[in-house]
């Protein structure tokens, strides 16, 4: 990954750093709107990274395309699970669903859950500073692991490197591997520390972006795997969409709350 002209490399590294920063911000904030915005920014960065890679493998067109779709639909999906379905007489099925995806309408609901409006949002869990320290620590851990794995992969101690040698591969591999692990860990941290089930999904999506970065490494090694990985990505998005559309509204309907702390009927 990232081998090529200096500007392409610098640009790609900037995108990776942007992806990490947005993940940290997503873990820090308790506002759903901010989480969605940072996720969209992160996915945009990754889709641009995929666009850079198109020159090495045309299958990246598909990967970039899927990421762009995700940027477009995520806010509408979150609106869908926030808004209630109100059918007016004479309204078609499509109109009802489209109305439910109204982001502006959902935003007024999301604002109500912001920390300054809803004290429940702050009642347990971690504050922004602790989350910042936590996520940065996790990224450091990820990079320590990446630095311990990568010398093996790039053949620092070997005669035959597993990654094809190129002038910049060594460093860039470490960066992308570290960033990938970092996004996974911060995404998981986000899921654990978050207080409402809508934000939990955003953590899951950050984890998915981490997987995307890991996939870029595999593609460097074996180009045959790209189509298989593309299908894996599609399957993953299908999974998250099903969770969003099918389960999240049901949990809210039956428990009357979107807070994780209120989902407590199944304790020993």
């Amino acid at each position: 990954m990232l081998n090529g002209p200096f500007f392409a490399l610098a640009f790609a590294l900037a995108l990776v750093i942007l992806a990490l920063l947005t993940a940290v911000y997503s873990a820090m904030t308790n506002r759903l709107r901010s989480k969605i915005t940072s996720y969209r920014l992160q996915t945009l960065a990754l889709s641009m990274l995929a666009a850079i890679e198109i020159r090495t493998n045309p299958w990246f067109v598909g990967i970039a395309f899927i990421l762009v779709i995700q940027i477009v639909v995520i806010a509408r999906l979150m609106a869908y699970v926030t808004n209630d379905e109100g059918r007016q007489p004479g309204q078609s099925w499509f109109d009802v669903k489209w109305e439910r995806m109204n982001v502006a309408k959902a935003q007024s609901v999301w604002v109500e859950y912001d920390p300054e409006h809803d004290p429940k949002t702050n009642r347990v869990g971690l504050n922004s500073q602790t989350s910042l320290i936590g996520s940065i620590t996790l990224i450091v851990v990820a990079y320590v692991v990446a630095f311990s794995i990568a010398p093996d992969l790039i053949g620092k101690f070997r005669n035959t490197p597993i990654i094809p040698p190129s002038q910049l591969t060594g460093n860039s591999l470490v960066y992308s591997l570290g960033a990938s692990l970092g996004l996974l860990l911060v995404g998981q941290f986000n899921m654990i520390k978050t207080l409402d089930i809508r934000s939990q999904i955003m953590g899951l999506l950050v984890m998915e972006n981490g997987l995307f970065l890991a996939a870029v490494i595999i593609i460097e090694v074996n180009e045959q795997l790209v189509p298989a990985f593309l299908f894996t990505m599609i399957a993953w998005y299908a999974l998250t969409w099903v969770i969003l559309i099918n389960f999240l509204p049901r949990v809210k309907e039956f428990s009357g709350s979107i807070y994780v702390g209120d989902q407590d009927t199944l304790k020993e």
Partner: protein
Amino acid sequence: MQTVSIGLVIGIVFPPFLTAFASLSGKSQSQRSSLLTFLASVISFCCSLALLLNFPKNGHYHLNFSVLFINIFIDALSVYFIFLINIVALFASYFTKFIMANDIEAQSEKEHWPNSLRLFHLEFNLFHCSMLLVPLVDNLLFLWVLIAFTTVISAPLIGYHRDRRAQEAAWKYIMISSSGIVFALLGTIFLLTVLKQNVDWSKIIHYLNQKNVVQGDLQGVVKIAFLLILLGYGTKAGLFPMHTWLPDGHGEAPSPVSALLSGVLLKCALYVILRFYVITNLALNEHDFASNMLLIFGLFSLLMATPFILNMKKENRFKRVLAYHSLEHMGIITFGFGLGIQVAFFGALYQALNHALTKALMFLAYGRVQETHANMGIPDEKIRGVFKIMPVTGCLLVLGGLALVGSPPFSIFFSEFTILFAAIQRVATNPLGIGVMIAAICAFLISIALIFAGLVTHLGRMMLGKSPIHAGKVREQSIPLLLLGILLVVLIWGGFTTNPLTNILQQSANIVYTGGF
């Protein structure tokens, strides 16, 4: 023979697949849909039995499908797991009929769920079908997709009962499973990076078997990859520490679904772990690392299950206790594989089948008791005196319980004893050291003894005592009792002999040990 095997594979996979969509057509009729589901399971089971009985010694079938880059590869291990899935599905599918009959009344009250019955059969059959595909496919990434798909399709089944507890359980299940499985994909990516091979496991194993081991400095990456895979698929296999969805999921799902989840889904994830276990062993050219990891995860799962089974609080309802038994048994099975010798693999594979059958018996029999009480408005935690009102079902439940805790003459005793025998054999040679192995065996025995006491107490409380139903005996239907009786006979048969599975079990144990090429 190749043509016959293609026909059998089609016969195994397509009936549940077609029934899934057939159940969507026409009016929502419980009886018709259940009958179709049962028929599909019968056809699929017969085909898997035919495949099992006619499987050549040390043979394998390789079927290429160029669509979506997916190949099908069948060896003895695949055949064994297909048989395991289908035998549990066969019994579970018949019992969907009773769950439905029970829920039709509830549905009439909640008219905004008119399609739930049809959707149940769609999901049940697709769930069955996706699990059947797991032992068939060769592609490691597609294997991941299938395991992720089983999560999506089984979560609505867990949340089938439209109440708060069920929705909460489904939510927990889907969140824990999907976040766990991400790590499995990352591990797969690491492994594929190092091996620089095709995504098909059969080709990877073939390549590694030709003495192409991973060299010294890359072994660390393989080890990290295996740990991530074990953590990821271990979430679906219900292994400690990602087992927390298990009691909620099994406890809230309708009984046939609980039987499938506990009996089969956990084993599907185990199957995937086994394939990676073989690859890791061959790549590292040693059994110690992967085996020790399995041993540790298995032992901790077993130990973690013990206090929860001993928990006698009211909130710890019987289905939750059974779910903790799944944790215990998955622990025992993983412990068996962790011993790293063929006798232990034989025992662990046999234990997987025995646990699946016993758990099916327990969940289905308890499902009948639960439905009878639910129809009279009695919640689970107040069920008492089952012997008085449902004597035959009660007896089956008690015998099933004794089988579950590993009493002779049932088959679990046989397989647990084999694992224990293998563990004692390994004491001197295990790389963890004699002291650690003796401590592990002692912990294993103490846990099993405590769990025996725990389950007997739970069963005693439920079977004896004063029943809240005052009407005397409840009429028990004969066909379900007959089916449960057959299951019990199979369990007793399995306690004396492994026939007709001996050959396939030996081959499977050999595959886990050597890769099979």
